[in-house]
């Protein structure tokens, strides 16, 4: 029983990751958005290194969060519209398992590349040298919560035309703790304080999201499929 379940999970995962990086996928777009939006902040607040380095961690986190949000709004919608979600719902994984696979695929294919280019953006934003490692660690620990919580929003708005704005309204308030602890960790490191408390809390938020995310997403998808 375990082997086929795992292979179904891997199949959904591989399919979604391929889709994210095929033509019209969200992978490259989220990455470009991330780059451009961070640069906009430099134009907005001016090029003084002191100002930029003060806000670097916050800007990178906020833009990563928005890039994640933008790439999530069609997480289920395309499959819902062409009917493949009905097929997936019948798979032995159950909807919660399918949601889990799709969330993991989103994180691996769309969010992980964002994290990998943050050192470059840190350079643009004059991030302090002590911040780099913690920034990457905090993104690694915190962004799964963004994908998981965002998945609930995407599932709730799957049948709503132009649901992206609605999804932002639903999901952004729930992103507050992740953002606070994520930026808190980097600021702590820059002030020569241990970031471990913030990182531990960030991990806790992600674990709570891991429990709630797939189940709530499945409940919302079931509603749309009725």
């Amino acid at each position, binding site marked *: 029983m375990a082997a086929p379940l795992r292979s179904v999970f891997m199949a959904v995962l591989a399919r979604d990751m391929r889709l994210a990086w095929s033509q019209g996928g969200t992978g490259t777009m989220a990455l470009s958005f991330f780059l451009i939006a961070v640069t906009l902040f430099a134009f907005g607040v001016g090029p003084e290194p002191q100002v930029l380095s003060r806000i670097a961690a916050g800007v990178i986190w906020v833009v990563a969060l928005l890039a994640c949000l933008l790439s999530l709004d069609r997480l289920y919608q395309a499959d819902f519209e062409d009917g493949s979600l009905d097929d997936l719902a019948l798979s032995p994984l159950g909807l919660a398992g399918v949601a889990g696979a799709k969330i993991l695929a989103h994180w691996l294919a769309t969010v992980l590349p964002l994290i990998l280019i943050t050192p470059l953006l840190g350079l643009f934003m004059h991030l302090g040298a002590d911040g780099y490692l913690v920034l990457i660690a905090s993104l690694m620990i915190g962004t799964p919560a963004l994908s998981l919580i965002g998945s609930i929003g995407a599932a*709730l708005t799957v049948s709503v035309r132009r649901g992206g704005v609605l999804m932002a*309204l639903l999901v952004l308030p*729930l992103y507050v*703790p992740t953002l*606070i602890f994520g930026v808190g960790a980097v600021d702590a490191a820059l002030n020569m304080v241990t970031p471990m408390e913030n990182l531990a*809390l960030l991990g806790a938020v992600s674990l709570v999201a891991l429990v*709630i995310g797939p189940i709530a997403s499945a409940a919302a998808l079931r*509603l749309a499929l009725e």
Partner: protein
Amino acid sequence: MHRFANPAEFNRLADRILPWSLAIMAGAFAAGLYLALFASPPDYQQGDSVRIMYVHVPAAWMAMFTYMVMAGASFTALVWRHPLADLAGKAAAPIGATFTALALVTGSLWGKPMWGTYWEWDGRMTSVLVLFFLYLGYMAVWQSMDDEAKAGRAASILALVGVANIPIIKFSVDWWNTLHQPASVMRMGGPTIDGTMLWPLLIMALAYKAYFVTVFLWRMKLEINRRKLSVLSQAEVYG
């Protein structure tokens, strides 16, 4: 509980409660506002600005209480499929959003003379602001779907996810920044606030609660009638 799934039964119950809640609301508002605005002493530090507190604190309490009502209704709607439960959530949400907005506005008016600023990113103010956004999201889900039954269940899922998150948001925001006074009424070891100020506050809290019950029941009845009307008009068209 399922006895009141029958709308007629519910309406009868509501009609029995409404005169009482209206009377309590009118009496408590009259007494509470008189005590709060005229009879109670000005604070030795805050002067007359302390009177804002009598409007502000009950609004903040009700903002959280109403979300709990909404969450309870959502849970009932999802688990027992109680037909009136999602309507109860829908009826409660705008009232809660209004209480939340009132708490924010009065808090900000109080903050100007006391803290010297209308808005401060203090922990509690920020978490009430986030609560306001959660209310907006809940109401937006109701508006976004044509199918009422589906909208109700989607909104219920969102309300429950929100409930799981409220403690986390509250904690994270408190951790982030804190300027607001610590709780002084509901805490271990009894209130630290003097009786001449506590009584007007409690009477105002009662008035707010009676207001909530009254408007909530009105809105429930309105929703039920609206649903009846739409069923009747559909019957006329398709019948």
